[in-house]
């Protein structure tokens, strides 16, 4: 494998890896996988690293990545520190049902799953037999793929496939715990999660990202989710990463007839985060509810791009993202609702609310509607402002000091989203992290 590479640019780093692994005659991958990786590589070279001229990256400058000397070394031995991190998280879970990953690698010895009627496979792309659902998931390349999701497809070597068979209500939630930690080297990690929920089945899934690094870590994650007829998924993505972590997450969800997605994206990361959530409503009476909360602290950059496409009639989407922007952080919200001509009787709702607390914070919000059907109810709204003065005054007039009043209001603003998370363990964890992150007083 290529050794430490100095400042040659991210594209070149990926190209060298590609040459080493895929162009070599003794490549271990199946022809279909090689084919997909090649296609991805060609698209990646053609697109290049996105610039601000690209509408989808208008506020998201990624050129700094070219200046970081990344290595492909895999650092997956567990340090004492990592061991402590993993155990402290596991301890907080009342239902011990989790898969643990460290720097992208699955740690079987730390993981514990107690379900019988669920298929969980830690697949390796260089094996010679792969579930066809995995291959078809890799095959879904389209124009929503960015440099980073393509990079993921090229670099990823293994992943997790969760398949819930028909008519199964999986009552215990499954936690995917991703820990990133690097002490000195600038590393690249890739995770791939493929989820298939068969008709009339239900799954609770939590994806938790935590990092504590001394050097830069570039992490790409692709989650590909299929909800078949009548299926339901409750998905929580909770990102709590440190300032050295650069994360690109792309989540695709396809919803068939009468299926139901409930998802929450909570981002407390202090580094650089870009999330792309693409929801396709492809079956009538399907419903997607996606909420989000982002807290920008220090010099963090958090960008949430969501795209929901109503492809058929009688579906509902309900989107609500809230953000608090503090210190010198920069947050971006870009929500797009597309209602195709066939999608009559669509109900689509989108709202983005922001509190800009600090002098040096920046928020760019862009809620968009593209509507091609007439019998629809669509609305969106966006607001930016500080904590409402009238509300502070009202609390003060009841004898509450200004600091406490602001605390109360800020917490109320965030809790609105947190309380809607389906899993009570995580409501507790996230709430206490929020209090720490914003230096809030504990008030009850």
């Amino acid at each position: 494998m290529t050794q430490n590479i100095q400042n040659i640019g991210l594209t070149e780093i990926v190209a060298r890896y590609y040459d080493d692994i895929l162009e070599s005659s003794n490549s271990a991958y199946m022809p279909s996988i090689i084919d997909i990786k090649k296609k991805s590589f060609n698209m990646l070279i053609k697109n290049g690293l996105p610039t601000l001229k690209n509408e989808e990256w208008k506020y998201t400058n990624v050129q700094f990545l070219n200046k970081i000397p990344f290595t492909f070394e895999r650092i997956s031995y567990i340090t004492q520190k990592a061991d402590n991190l993993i155990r402290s998280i596991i301890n907080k879970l009342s239902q011990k049902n989790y898969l643990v990953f460290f720097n992208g690698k699955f740690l079987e010895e730390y993981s514990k799953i107690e379900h019988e009627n669920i298929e969980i496979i830690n697949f390796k792309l260089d094996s010679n037999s792969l579930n066809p659902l995995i291959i078809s998931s890799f095959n879904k390349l389209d124009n929503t793929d960015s440099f980073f999701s393509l990079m993921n497809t090229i670099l990823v070597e293994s992943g997790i496939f969760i398949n819930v068979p028909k008519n199964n209500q999986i009552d215990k939630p499954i936690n995917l715990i991703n820990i990133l930690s690097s002490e000195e080297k600038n590393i690249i990690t890739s995770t791939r999660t493929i989820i298939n929920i068969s008709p009339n089945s239900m799954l609770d899934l939590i994806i938790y990202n935590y990092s504590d690094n001394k050097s830069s870590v570039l992490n790409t994650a692709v989650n590909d989710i299929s909800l078949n007829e009548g299926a339901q998924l409750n998905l929580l993505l909770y990102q709590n990463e440190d300032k050295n972590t650069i994360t690109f997450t792309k989540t695709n969800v396809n919803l068939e007839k009468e299926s139901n997605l409930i998802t929450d994206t909570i981002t407390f990361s202090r580094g650089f985060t870009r999330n792309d959530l693409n929801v396709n409503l492809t079956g009538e009476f399907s419903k997607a509810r996606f909420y989000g909360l982002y807290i920008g602290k220090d010099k963090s950059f958090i960008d949430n791009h969501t795209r929901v496409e109503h492809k058929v009639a009688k579906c509902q989407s309900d989107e609500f993202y809230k953000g608090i922007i503090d210190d010198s952080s920069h947050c971006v919200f870009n929500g797009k609702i597309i209602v195709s001509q066939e999608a009559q009787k669509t109900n689509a709702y989108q709202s983005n609310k922001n509190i800009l607390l600090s002098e040096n914070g920046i928020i760019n919000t862009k809620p968009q509607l593209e509507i091609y059907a007439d019998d629809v109810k669509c609305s969106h709204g966006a607001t930016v402002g500080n904590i409402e003065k009238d509300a502070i005054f009202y609390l003060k007039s009841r004898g509450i000091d200004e600091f406490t009043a602001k605390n109360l209001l800020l917490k109320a603003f965030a809790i609105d989203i947190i309380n809607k998370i389906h899993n009570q363990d995580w409501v507790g964890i996230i709430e206490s992290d929020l209090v720490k992150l914003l230096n809030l007083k504990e008030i009850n």
Partner: protein
Amino acid sequence: MGNGNDILEKLTQSDYKHGFVSNIEQELAPKGLNEDIIRFISQKKNEPDWMLEWRLKAFRYWQTMKEPKWAKVYYPSIDYQDIHYYAAPVKKPGPKSLDEVDPELIKTFEKLGIPLEEQKRLSGVAVDAVLDSVSVATTFKDKLAELGIIFCPISEALQEHPDLVRQYIGSVVPYTDNYFAALNSAVFSDGSFCYIPKGVRCPMELSTYFRINASSTGQFERTLIIADEGSYVSYLEGCTAPIRDENQLHAAVVELIAHKDAEIKYSTVQNWYPGDKEGKGGIYNFVTKRGICLGENSRISWTQVETGSAITWKYPSCILKGDNSVGEFYSVALTNNFQQADTGTKMIHIGKNTRSRIISKGISAGRSQNSYRGLVKINKKAQNARNFSQCDSLLIGDKCGAHTFPYIDIENNTAIVEHEATTSKISDDILFYFNQRGISKEDAIGIVVNGYAREILNQLPMEFAVEARKLLSVSLEGSVG
């Protein structure tokens, strides 16, 4: 009960009422665009050297640019060499009285409801009538001059007030601003110039009426309005064109400058020929309009009723530089048949306590596409800035589209910015309610659309509000027997 779809189809059948062609003797520059043509235009206008230099610079810059493609509009590429960049009625330079104006020309404007003759003039409105590339008449000039107000064609201003023009032209929209602004800067042939001196409240509405008549021509007018300290002006703009199979290009630039305590109200009723029911012909309307609130407490308000043009690409904007300045944008954009509109505004908050308000109402019918695109930017130093935006879309029929692309960029934590948008159709419940009260579906749609647009129409001066209301009705009403 009548089938809703039948009615909607009939709604698209109303005819364009200003589609006639006038038989006026023309002077045409040869087709094509090069430095010689620009020199020809400049020479025709007897312009000072600096003006020609500026035009040439703009042209050279334009040659390095690419036509923008980011708007949600689709059209075959324009052959810029296949256009006449100058067309003018044959006349003696600068008609000092109407006796010198071709009677056919006066008739043309009369037909459009814009009488130029002294005895028939609209009371309370001074009109600058622009046909193709040149201004043909300006009314009430002398009366305005008594107050120190300058209202004349920009070509005349270049002769009579060159320093004023030189000081302000390109100061709000530099020729480097965008592709069509650069093109306009190179080839603009006429337009209105208006200067309101310190402390003067302009006693009448100033109005420019733009008419494209010649075929294969582009219209590139340039309007410059300066409101000096403490002054006020309300300015109206109307546009029509004959029915032709070809697409004609209209690329105008409007610059507004409001000094301390000054106020400019700029209203447009845009009714360029929209093309026929199959989408053939119609004006490509690529316009750059921008105002700057330069001084404290100044105010610029844009109101537009956009019903015409095959393609509209237009974002009347405000740069709120002076502290406590106010920018407003009120818009109704109605598209029908195969029309495409991509329109909205930019509000750039720079000064302290600046406020802006955006009310946009899009109405899509037929197979048209109607987009709102807007930017609200609060700069880091813009303390206590406020913005409220409301962008609603109404869909009539299931083959059209309504889109909203708001950009909100905030860099100051004292800002309060709110954006709301809804998309809906006229509900069956509302139509039934009207029916039940004895009003036909088609009338009901007309009434609802007018009600929907009321907030904007109320911003227009009386004379225009009436015209605009009729225009909305013509586009959507009165066609079911």
